[in-house]
Structures are given as structure tokens and as C-alpha cells.
């Protein structure tokens, strides 16, 4: 998630509950894997929020002011890490079906072929 070298993923908000059982995985993730994630991504701001009585979620904020929220209730710490890595790896663009696999502004170098072109 870097557009022409500029990181698009700005902030990760880890919201959890310290009482609920659905937050067990994310609490374990915060102890075991979150420090490693912070170390590997120095350009990323990570904030932890306590929201009691609510299910846990990961919120990713991108440079195009897009927010992606992923609910991580009842997940293992490894699954939470996978979700966090996926958020970090993607650009903030809307998830739409790909039109083409090749996006270009200059489709032709030697001139677009027409029936009038003679080699």
C-alpha cells in the first residue's frame, strides 16, 4: 500500500474490550504480535482504544480519508494479525471488481493499429 512510494496506510485503531470474551483474541494479539507490527512499520500510527461492552474491531485510516473497519470478534491472534496485515497491505481504494489487469495512460507506443496501417 504505497502509491508511487508514498505510504497510504496512515493509522490503525485497535478497539477492544477488556472484559468481553469476544476480545480475547485481540487482547492476546496486542500482547504478542502488535509490538512486532509497530516495529516493522515505523511510518504507521497505531492507537489502542478501550470500548467496554462492545465487540472488538480494527479500523484502518488511509490517506484518501477512507476508513476500513474489520470486526475481529472471536478471532485467534493469528487471524487478527492477518487482518491487520491485509489492512496495511492495501491502498485505501474502494473494493470494486477489476475492469482490466493492466492500467495505463499510454496504451500505444508505435501507434494504434487500424486497417489502414501498412507494415
Amino acid at each position: 500500500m504505497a502509491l508511487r512510494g508514498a505510504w497510504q496506510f496512515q493509522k490503525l485503531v485497535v478497539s477492544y474490550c477488556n472484559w468481553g470474551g469476544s476480545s480475547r483474541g485481540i487482547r492476546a494479539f496486542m500482547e504478542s504480535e502488535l509490538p512486532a507490527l509497530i516495529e516493522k512499520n515505523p511510518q504507521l500510527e497505531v492507537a489502542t482504544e478501550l470500548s467496554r461492552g462492545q465487540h472488538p474491531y480494527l479500523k484502518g485510516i488511509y490517506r484518501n480519508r477512507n476508513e476500513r473497519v474489520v470486526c475481529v470478534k472471536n478471532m485467534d491472534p493469528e487471524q487478527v494479525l492477518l487482518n491487520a496485515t491485509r489492512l496495511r497491505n492495501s491502498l485505501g481504494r474502494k473494493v470494486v471488481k477489476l475492469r482490466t489487469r493492466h492500467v495505463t495512460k499510454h496504451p500505444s507506443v508505435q501507434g494504434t493499429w487500424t486497417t489502414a496501417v501498412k507494415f
Partner: protein
Amino acid sequence: MASLRCIRELSRRATTVLSISQTRLISSIRGLELSGKSITQAEAPVQNRPLTRDFLWYSRSQGRQFASKSNGTDESSEGEDEEEMEVEREYSPAEIGYKVMGPLKSSERLFKPYEPVFAVVQIGSHQFKVSNGDSIFTEKLKFCDINDKLTLTKVLLLGSASQTIIGRPILPDATVHAVVEEHALDEKVLIFKKKRRKNYRRTTGHRQELTKLRITDIQGIEKPEPEIVLKPSKSADTQQPEAELVG
């Protein structure tokens, strides 16, 4: 569920087998399978009809357990060998996808303006006609992270406005440099299966993992020199409208 049923049946039949053959105690399923083998080898000539049926079922069920690779707690030791063999298949990090990983990007200016040069490059089984500054969506590339520089080594054709270089099948001296922009999931596609009048309806969701690459440089062909456009200075600009008005 099927594995639990198998285990129950196995234990039931194994006890009958044990009572007849008087082999050693069976504690785990691994032990069961071993002793089962020894039983078939040793007791083959002495089997009764119900016993043979049991043994056949036993060996077949063992085979089934092997193949299914289900939630194996005790079977995991045998299942792991099969999985390891599958993973070791030829996945050398970069050669299969025809890419070589360069070092991570530091603070260097890689993104040049457009040059009228193109290359046909192959990644995995897909080929793309790329130029400087294009983006490509490929299947997820392992072993590379965001902001990694890649070198795409399998170049099939190079072209510019004046020259075309065709590889047979690849050009060994040509390289295309790219940078990994993102690893993301595609939108979910719903796979709906139905057989009419047969009470069969299935819905599956699938999201493909893709990697977006930005092509930065193509090497191996002479590039035309960029034309330098002289910008008119400001004093000339202010004078020109006056001239136009007068003219």
C-alpha cells in the same frame, strides 16, 4: 464427524481383532495402524471370513483417513508428511514467477516520466504489454512485501517507436523494473450452483488475492531522447497579447 465414527468403529473392531490375535495394547491410532499392518502380515493365512472383512475395511478406512487429511490430532504425524511433500514442490522464491527481488526501496526517485518504450513481460502464466508508469495486477506474489523493488526477468519482446526486438522465446539481457504497490483482495464473487428439480443449490464466495505492481523502468533497448520544450519567458508572454490585439 466421519473421522470420529471411523475411530469408534476402528476401536470396536480392533478390540475384536486383539482378542483373537493377542497382540500388544493399542493406545493411539498410530499404534492401531502399525499393529493393523503387523496383523495383516502375520495373520493372513489364519483369517476367518468375518476377520478378513474387518481387515479389508480396516485397511481401506486407514487409506481413507490418510487421504482425507481431516482434523487430525493423532493422524497429524502421517498427514504432515504428505503436506510437506506437497509444499516442497518447486517453489523456489522467484524463479517460478520470473521475478527476482531487489532490495527494499530507500529514499530514491524511481518514478520517471513516461518514455515511449514498451515490453512484453511474463509473470507466472500471464503476459502483459507494459510501459513506464503502468500498473499491473498479477496473482499474489509471495516473498515480496510492499515497496519492494522487483526485476521481471522473463521479457519476451521489447519495442520503441523505431525498433522492435523479439526474443526467442525470451530476451536474456532485457530487464523490467517494478515496484510492489499493494497486496489486496479482489471484490467477492458469488459462485452459485443449482440443479433444477433436484433440490441442489450451493452458494460460495471467493476473493482472489492480487498484487499490484507499478512498472518503473525498461532496460535493454535504446530509448529516444526526450524532446526539450523551451518554455516562453514571462516577458514574451506579456508582450504577445498586445501584438495579437494589434495584429
